[in-house]
């Protein structure tokens, strides 16, 4: 059965419920109706599906997702460090079902932008009036010599939460005291810009307590990173010289790995690791390229007001896959974009001009369980991109006292509870 039939049934039932089945269908000018398909049930896609229903319940919304349970990347570094169980990062889609979102658990295999159809691996074809794509990221398996999918079983990336997160945790638990942990961090852009450095922080917290003779080396393909001064000050205060960061210009870029030998090669040295966390270069999830909404960079250019693809009509792209200008690839940004995109889609379906959005990002990192730092930004469309609003945003003060850091750590935890409840609750 195609969704077109399902939608007709949905509207017929809506009419029949009030005994008005013989009334003509309302026209679009009276309000938005239609069918929106959302591909991807992460922070962006789940938030978009729920937001569409909250804004206009007459719109039929179908969420297409391969997994019945979502595992959050935000806070997965606490699992890596043994501070939290992975069960606390897992969320189902029952909340969205209760809000009237139709769930379809299958992989999207093709998108026909001209005929406005999505093909799924189970043989279903969905017809849409608007498509919202939130495919997240795929790892580029051909970008780093020696790092392929089998290699990731010895040197986990743990950049998609789940089995990889648990593998990295097990390796750290099994590592003898005095071992060398290496994190290979990619060049920009990538999912969660402060993520590798929060991970280094929380692994150091674990090592300092349990394996204090160990060292942690960050080999970086760039010369600077998000919240750098705050991280470095926190590392010095909490972990002494346990963490060493090697920048691009100091020879930090990893050019090759050997998963059997557990070595990482740079232009200047070969490092033998006890535990190696290799975070490879990334691109938009594969279906984006299949649909024709990814450009040569591997990411998806969008209109900053509507999030509609600049490459394909009636397809919107949100979250990590999108080129969102100054907005980082964070869960907060994904949720904020989802809500702005949903408002634009509802306006477009009603034949109204979408309003110009204003977006916020707030991103917390834990340097230790009671030491939080943040970066915030406010964004508006400018010059075809989402640009920083001048004078707003920025990072936590460098000279704050421990109570300020503890308060931000509390807010970090509360943020996770709030954002997951809003997206999935």
């Amino acid at each position, binding site marked *: 059965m195609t969704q077109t039939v399902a939608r007709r049934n949905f509207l017929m039932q809506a009419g029949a419920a009030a005994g008005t089945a013989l009334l003509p269908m309302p026209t679009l000018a009276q309000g938005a109706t239609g069918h929106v398909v959302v591909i991807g049930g992460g922070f962006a896609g789940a938030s978009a599906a729920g937001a569409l229903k909250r804004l206009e319940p*007459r719109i039929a919304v179908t969420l297409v997702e391969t997994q019945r349970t979502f595992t959050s990347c935000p806070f997965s570094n606490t699992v890596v460090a043994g501070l939290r169980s992975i069960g606390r990062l897992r969320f189902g889609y029952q909340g969205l079902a209760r809000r009237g979102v139709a769930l379809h658990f299958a992989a999207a295999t093709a998108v026909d932008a001209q005929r406005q159809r999505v093909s799924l691996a189970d043989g279903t074809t969905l017809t849409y009036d608007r498509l919202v794509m939130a495919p997240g990221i795929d790892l580029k398996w051909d970008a780093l010599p020696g790092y392929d999918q089998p290699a990731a079983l010895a040197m986990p990336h743990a950049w998609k939460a789940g089995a990889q997160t648990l593998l990295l945790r097990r390796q750290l638990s099994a590592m003898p005291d005095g071992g060398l942990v290496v994190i290979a961090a990619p060049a920009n852009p990538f999912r969660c810009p402060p993520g590798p450095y929060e991970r280094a922080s929380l692994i150091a917290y674990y090592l300092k307590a349990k394996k204090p003779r160990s060292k942690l080396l960050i080999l970086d393909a760039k010369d600077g990173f998000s919240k750098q001064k705050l991280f470095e000050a926190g590392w010095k205060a909490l972990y002494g010289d346990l963490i060493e960061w090697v920048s691009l210009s100091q020879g930090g870029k990893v050019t090759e790995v050997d998963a059997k030998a557990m070595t990482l090669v740079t232009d200047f040295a070969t490092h033998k690791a006890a535990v190696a966390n290799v975070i490879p270069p990334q691109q938009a999830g594969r279906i984006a390229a299949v649909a024709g909404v990814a450009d040569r960079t591997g990411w998806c250019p969008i209109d900053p007001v509507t999030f509609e693809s600049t490459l394909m009509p009636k397809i919107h792209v949100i979250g990590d896959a999108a080129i969102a200008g100054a907005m980082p690839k964070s869960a907060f940004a994904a949720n904020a974009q989802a809500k702005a995109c949903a408002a634009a889609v509802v306006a477009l379906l009603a034949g109204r001009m979408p309003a110009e959005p*204003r977006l916020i990002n*707030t991103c917390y990192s834990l340097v230790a369980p009671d030491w939080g730092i943040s970066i915030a930004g406010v964004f508006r469309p400018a010059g075809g991109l989402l640009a920083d609003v001048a004078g707003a945003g920025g990072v936590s003060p460098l000279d704050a006292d421990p109570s300020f850091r503890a308060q931000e750590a509390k807010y970090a935890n509360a943020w996770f509870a709030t954002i997951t409840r*809003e997206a999935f609750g």
Partner: protein
Amino acid sequence: MRSFRMASALVVLLAAARVLAQPPPPGAWSCSGCHLASPGAAGAPASLAGRKAADIAGAVADFRTGRRPATVMDRIAKGFSDDEIAAIAAWWQDQRP
């Protein structure tokens, strides 16, 4: 028309969906990334739904000038004008907690 509205309302009830009375003004819907739309999360910043618009707008204005201490709201408040804050505050006042 009227019947259709009634039908829609019924569908809403059946789906148990919480529906927004009006679309949020620019920026307003970003707030609930941290300020939960309904109260309950331990240690979370205050929910804004149903609060008096004057209280919300006053707090944001004080965050912006630094009169009221903040961790992150000072940085966010600087991205909005008085009119924008007033519109956001009025919308949150109308939301049901």
